[in-house]
């Protein structure tokens, strides 16, 4: 999200647009948006371009479209860019309380959905930065924390905002779950348990997948008590019907992700990937997509002391790895990634269609194509220019950012 205040000129333009925006009547009538550039992402840029929206869905995309009778027309102007709503594969925040069940390490069927705070400021911030879809990923404090869900950052009804209730099984191949556990403390503490280090993390993962594979009973000490079968998501993953989102940051942990995938036959996606540039080749040859955590180069970074470089995205892309950027501020991240070596087209894909594919929601979001949800971002310039601001963000055909000013609504 850009925290820069819009300048006066931009603000006036925005207010003027609100007056004619379809906010209040999203589902009724057609809307035609014209812009100097339309970045469709999947079928190249249109200059100029026009997008026709009907009933919250993209109906037509073309260089020029005749407005249908009664349609509202929004002309963004020659300098503006219209692009798909951004997709954040690891939306920060959005959950009330811890995004993990703390009493067990293996909770594969647990979902963050019931803990989502739909009015969370995190969604408003994401929306202001152009992000319309985000994955809520359970926290890496558990070895298998649960399922990722995908939601829209805005919408009338909570149920309408859910895009996917099951975007993948999240596992942790990092030292995180060990951080709070202790081998010896007060005997009644729930934190006297494995793992207390990485050997335990990998041991529990391997044990869980092996038990799931042979249909054994869950281990009650480590695994969530469930009415159903807590190992079902693991079996689905091993059968190739579900992806595994593996939180992993060091190079050797990513090799462990690949090794476990080889042993148990699941298709992984790496989440985090700080040192992925060191193992770009094996990631590419195994066709493992990487969702990079927020780009930065503090060195060494975090509890694992990972070595970060600016061009991790560019190196991965060049090796043939699908790269997504995540963790908030997607436009700024794409700008930095592009500044340090990620080609323009890949940078735009990394915040739209690539994360949509990783999450299995590319049928609905991630590009400007007929039939997809009308999630659009209007920018007052080129997306990868640092001075470019978000003019408005539309979700399912309704402009949700900026919020309509009540004093203007009567106009």
């Amino acid at each position, binding site marked *: 999200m850009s925290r820069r205040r819009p300048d006066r000129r931009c603000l006036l333009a925005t207010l003027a647009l609100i007056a004619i925006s379809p906010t209040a009547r999203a589902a009724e009538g057609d809307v035609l948006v014209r812009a100097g550039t339309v970045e469709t992402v999947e079928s190249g840029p249109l200059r100029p371009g026009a997008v026709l929206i009907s009933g919250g869905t993209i109906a037509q995309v073309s260089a020029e479209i005749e407005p249908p009778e009664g349609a509202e027309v929004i002309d963004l102007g020659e300098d503006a860019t219209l692009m798909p709503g951004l997709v954040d594969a690891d939306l920060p925040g959005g959950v009330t309380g811890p995004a993990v069940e703390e009493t067990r390490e293996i909770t594969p069927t647990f979902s963050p959905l019931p803990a989502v705070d739909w009015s969370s400021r995190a969604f408003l911030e994401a929306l202001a930065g152009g992000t319309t879809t985000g994955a809520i990923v359970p926290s890496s404090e558990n070895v298998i924390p649960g399922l990722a869900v995908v939601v829209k950052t805005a919408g009338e009804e909570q149920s309408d905002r859910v895009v996917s209730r099951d975007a993948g099984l999240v596992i942790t191949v990092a030292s995180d779950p060990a951080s709070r556990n202790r081998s010896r403390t007060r005997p009644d503490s729930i934190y006297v348990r494995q793992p207390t280090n*990485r*050997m335990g993390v990998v041991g529990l993962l391997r044990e869980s997948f092996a038990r799931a594979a042979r249909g054994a009973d869950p281990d009650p000490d480590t695994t969530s008590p469930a009415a159903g079968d807590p190992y079902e998501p693991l079996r689905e993953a091993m059968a190739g019907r579900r992806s595994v989102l593996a939180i992993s940051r060091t190079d050797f942990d990513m090799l462990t992700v690949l090794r476990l995938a080889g042993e148990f036959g699941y298709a992984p996606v790496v989440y985090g990937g700080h040192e992925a540039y060191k193992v770009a080749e094996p990631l590419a040859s195994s066709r493992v997509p990487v969702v990079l955590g927020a780009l930065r180069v503090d060195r060494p970074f975090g509890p694992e002391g990972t070595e970060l470089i600016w061009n991790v995205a560019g190196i991965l892309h060049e090796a043939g790895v699908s790269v997504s950027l995540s963790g908030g501020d997607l436009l700024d991240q794409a700008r930095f990634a592009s500044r340090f070596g990620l080609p323009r087209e890949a940078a735009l894909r990394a915040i739209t269609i690539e994360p949509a594919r990783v999450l299995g929601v590319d049928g609905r979001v991630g590009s400007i194509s007929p039939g997809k949800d009308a999630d659009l971002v209007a920018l007052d310039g080129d997306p990868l220019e640092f001075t470019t601001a978000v003019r408005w963000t539309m979700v399912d055909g309704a402009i949700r950012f900026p919020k309509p000013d009540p004093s203007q609504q009567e106009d």
Partner: protein
Amino acid sequence: MTPNRISPTALVLLLGLLSPMAAAQEASSAEGQENRPLAVLAGKVITCAGEPIVDGVVLVRGGKIEAVGPQTEVEIPEGYEVIDCGDKFLMPGLVEVHCHVGGSGDLNEMVYQTNPDLRVLDQVIPHNDALQVAVAGGVTTVCYIPGSGTNMGGFGAILKTGPGELEDVLVRFPGVLKIAQWGNPERRDGTLGSGRMGMNWIIRDQLEEGRAYVRAWDDYESGKSSERPEIDLRLEMFKPLFRREIPVLVHTQGYQGIQATLEMLHDAMDLRIVIGHGTFEGYLISDEVIRRNVPVIAGPRGFRFDPDDGQIHGIVAEYDRRGVEWLGVNTDSPVIPQEELSFQATMAVRYGWNEEEAIRGITIEPARALMIEDRVGSIEVGKDADLVICTGSIIDPRNYVTQVIIDGKVVYDIAKDRRRF
């Protein structure tokens, strides 16, 4: 997935061999320069397999030792790159049995007293900062093992210290099982294993379970039993152990500790063992050690103050004096920095060990203890070309390593890399 459906391939992988996916293709793309066969000439070649050779030469081809002998007898074929070390000493790469610096340092998972399902393989960091300096100290092979916080810390991996991906540097996994039978794992928090009695009961109990599991599999695989046992990942790595394909590296010290190790692990369980510290008054049980022909790779503490005679005694020298021949030293790095393995031998000599045996004690004897003597530990035809060039005998601490070759590639050369140690 249906129950019990683990493919044979998956099983091999479960045992820790590398997934082909993880394999980087670096090995095949190694530059031609590095693949050039070498002829290494030195004033003295200490082979650790017979008498030293004065003015000797070692031919290296395809990462292996192709020939070794006096320069007057071994002809250098056309196209070999000649590395003439003048009057320097050439010796086999040093072998460390007790290393904790081969990876991320996730060493002690201490919730349970026995952890046979844990493995260091998943956190190996090849050629990390500590191992790079180790190379400069002449150390070319290390056994990276879990710590001694519990009675059974998990399975270690045997690695080369040079550059490369995991599959390039891995010598064997599982390398050893780590058992701690003295001191560190004794608990005082109310759980079982508060002292030697409880601790030894725990180790025996776990090994009994493992042995029963392996026997059930052996019976099934030899056709003695038609009932296929369930795969239990917690016990799976006991298979190579009870089949005597890999040893147990035992953290054991003192007379009582070593006695328990010999009687339980060697006699009752019929395991290959390595006495991994052997310190304090442990040498007093030398007769029992000799009778069973097990290796003592001693350290990191190299001496003991004997209150009876008021003298400092060298640990290794005392074993040696009593007739133990399968002897070596370790660093327990980072307790002693990994690059100082040769200093451990130096100090053992200072306390009365023999220099020739001390050189064997950091090369071929630890290699035999780890059961990798077919690959490393001496300069013999067919073995890995892991060679160390030193300004003189490595036992004299005034000398230093000038070049190191691992698997036929020069990985350290003070002319290019500056002297790092």
